[in-house]
């Protein structure tokens, strides 16, 4: 079996989604040019978005989404028992992601009432990232994940090679692309703190990096906050950006 000219073993891969938008799985279906190649790289045995048949024999489990309910905890633990390698797939799985915004509310009963009125609804008090429940072997960051990075990571897993995450921040790439810095236009940006690997996608499209890939290696958060304040942003505005994906420790 060859993939892009490389001899490969063919691991069985299964995708599981928990609480999320399923946009990360979609990136795989959206990788039109390489989808057929990807399918030959791993044997996809469980991909709920496009498969009816189920097969519970797998080597790699891709976990998409965050964990929000008791039955999800049990389900995740069972998958961990079976999988040789467990991958947190996307920012929801890696950090909790957007869903974790729910955790900022102290009163879960108010949250339920705000959405469902007086109807009883089951949910855990806290939204959790995958590694708050089970051990994670690999992380693929991004909301959504970056298609080409997924490929590179899956390839290293299949080949048993180490994958080197980019350590530098989004800024690095943004400057390479010679974008006008958003701070010069009076906008806030998380690029200086966020892990690169997305091609500085948002600033290159004229909008702020909102930190969807989580922190770069050793981000200097306090220093950056003082710079943000110097640029005229309030504590509240800064918190807006930091709390968005629950990926930065404040």
């Amino acid at each position, binding site marked *: 079996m060859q993939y892009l000219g490389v001899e490969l073993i063919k691991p069985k891969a299964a995708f599981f989604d*928990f*609480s*999320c*938008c*399923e*946009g*990360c*799985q*979609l*990136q795989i*279906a*959206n990788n*039109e*040019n390489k*989808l*057929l190649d990807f*399918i030959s790289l791993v044997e*996809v045995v469980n*991909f*709920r*978005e*496009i*498969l*009816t*048949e*189920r097969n519970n024999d797998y080597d790699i489990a891709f976990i998409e989404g965050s964990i*929000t*309910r008791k*039955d*999800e905890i049990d*389900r995740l633990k069972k998958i961990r028992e079976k999988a040789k390698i467990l991958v947190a797939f996307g920012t929801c799985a890696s950090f909790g*992601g*957007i*869903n974790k*915004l*729910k955790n900022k*509310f102290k009163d879960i009963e*108010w*949250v*339920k009432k*705000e*959405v*469902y*009125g007086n*109807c009883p*609804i089951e*949910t855990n008090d806290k939204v959790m990232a995958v590694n708050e429940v089970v051990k994670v072997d690999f992380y693929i960051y991004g*909301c*959504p994940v970056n298609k080409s990075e997924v490929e590179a990571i899956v390839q290293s897993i299949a080949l048993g090679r180490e994958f080197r995450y980019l350590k530098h921040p989004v800024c690095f790439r943004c400057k390479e692309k010679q974008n006008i810095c958003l701070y010069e236009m009076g906008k806030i940006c998380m690029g200086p703190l966020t892990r690169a690997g997305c091609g500085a*996608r*948002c600033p290159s*499209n*004229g*909008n702020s990096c*909102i930190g969807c890939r989580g922190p770069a290696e050793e981000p200097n958060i306090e220093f950056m906050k003082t710079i943000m304040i110097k640029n005229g942003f309030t504590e509240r*505005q800064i918190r*807006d950006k930091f709390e*968005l994906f629950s990926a930065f420790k404040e």
Partner: protein
Amino acid sequence: MHNEKDYLTRVEGHGTIDIKVRNGRIKKAEWQVIETPRFFEAMMVDKHFDDVSLIVSRICGICSIAHSTASIRATENAFDVKISGKTELFRRILMNAETLQSHILHLYFLALPDFLGEGSIFPIITKNKNAAEIALRLKKIANDMCDVIGGRNTHPMTMVVGGFTKFPSKESLLILQKDLLNSVPDLIETSKIFMSLKIPDFERETEFVSLKGENNYPWIGGQLMSSDGVLKPESEYKKMTNEFMSDWSTSKLAKLSRDSFAVGSLARINNNFNLLHPKAKEICENFKLKAICYNPFMNNIAQLVECFHAVYETLELFEKVLNMDLSPEDIKIKPKKGKGVGAVEAPRGILYHCNEYNEEGRIVHCDFIIPTGQNHANIREDLNKLVKDYSKKGYSDSEIELLCQMLVRSYDPCISCSVH
């Protein structure tokens, strides 16, 4: 309580069909939603308008453009923001592109395996590489348009309150235009594939709800209408949905003039047939799809018709934007206290966002009504009748079960969305 085996595959999100037929009589026919709720409405409280559309886009990966557009429109209506003609055109292109992407995904990856009796697209890839390649090419052009104009095919970031942070270059638009033109033969091939399939014979009279187009096929904003003659302004969306909870679903349900109504491609076409592009009308003719059509399985064909519409309308829109100055616009937004509604036609049907803000432009209260949630009650009624009709015809329990699954999938339900 929620077992892995219970998950209904090939629909977005977690749903199960629970059907029991004994001795030709229906015991139980339920289409349930067991997705974990994520409480988006609550999460939004206190959020700044800059971030609002970026957050709600994460309600659903497949229709993130529709969510962003509805949200931005709601905010613009709350702040009385006027947008430029150019912004309007690019938003329409994006809505067409997302519809094309979503419909192709559904038609090839989800519906086609059903009709061919396969478990997934994968055996089709092996047996009919041509069909798979057509699907991927069509999806790619749709996603490329979202990438180039929205900044990313999922969770667009160029769309903001007041306009776009960046318009695409003419060069990139010309490439898209060429690719889109070249995709027409693939679409025609798609319609041939679907022509060869047998659509199950089934009808149930119901009400159809959608936006009402004025001069164009409706994608963004305007009046709300139903096939039973209800007509309301966008701001009165609650009178169209009358949401209620039921013990069989964690998702809210909706009704209007009857016990249930349908939204989606078939509803849009039933309500706006005359506004379809002439090329799309030709496809209706080929499939004998006439307004009003009461066969929910025909929603698949309605999606195919809309793919034609999306491609041809987008080609016309490209002509227009290519003649415009595409330098960025200066966007200045002054927030104010108040409430605004944005209604759009997402691929799966009408979607409402209502954003209420304080003076600082932070959310006080939010309300989102999602297409699939509106369809749930209708799907349930359909299932009831389908089981009855087909047991009378002498079909076995397992055959009926398969038909029921196909029926649910014909609605292209999106569960992440409906339990947000």
